[in-house]
């Protein structure tokens, strides 16, 4: 079973989601590289972390469900985990940056 065996009803939206997710992640990382200050820079990778990861995980769910001929939704674990933990890290980093810039 390879990706060439995936039926068209699953391959078309999965390919669209993969292209969208890749482009969103690329734009986020380019923002991380190009923006000026740290407080502008912290916004950029969150786009790749939420929307990009969400697109890729939904596409992975589609493809594995179509390959296994049943509903496979264990990728929801990663989605939930990333959605819960990304703001925690960002908030702590932001508070550390505010404290360090004040000194």
């Amino acid at each position: 079973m390879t990706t060439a065996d995936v039926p068209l009803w699953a391959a078309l939206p999965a390919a669209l989601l993969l292209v969208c997710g890749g482009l969103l992640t690329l734009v986020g990382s380019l923002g991380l590289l190009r923006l000026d200050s740290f407080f502008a820079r912290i916004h950029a990778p969150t786009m790749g972390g939420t929307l990009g990861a969400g697109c890729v995980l939904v596409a992975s769910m589609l493809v594995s469900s179509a390959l296994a001929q049943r509903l496979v939704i264990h990728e929801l674990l990663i989605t939930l985990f990333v959605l819960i933990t990304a703001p925690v890290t960002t908030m702590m980093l932001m508070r550390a940056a505010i404290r360090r810039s004040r000194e």
Partner: protein
Amino acid sequence: MNALLPLAVNFALACFALSMLCALIRLLRGPAAQDRILALDTLYINGMLTILMLGIGLGSALYFDIALLIALFGFVGSTAMAKFLLRGEVIEP
């Protein structure tokens, strides 16, 4: 049969490789420590997405567990380093 999905997988793999390159440049160049931690967090998420993409491309379910572990350890590492910047120590007595 249809070459649409392998094409999209290769395109997304190239996008993630470029994103990891951008994050790596920011990691090496970042002026302050918090920039480097942010770049490392982005690198972790991009690596997790790359592993997932390999799982889709090869049609194997084994890569899912690796991606989950990478997400877990990335969160723990980034939080520990941010806590160290915030407080000066990771585990407070």
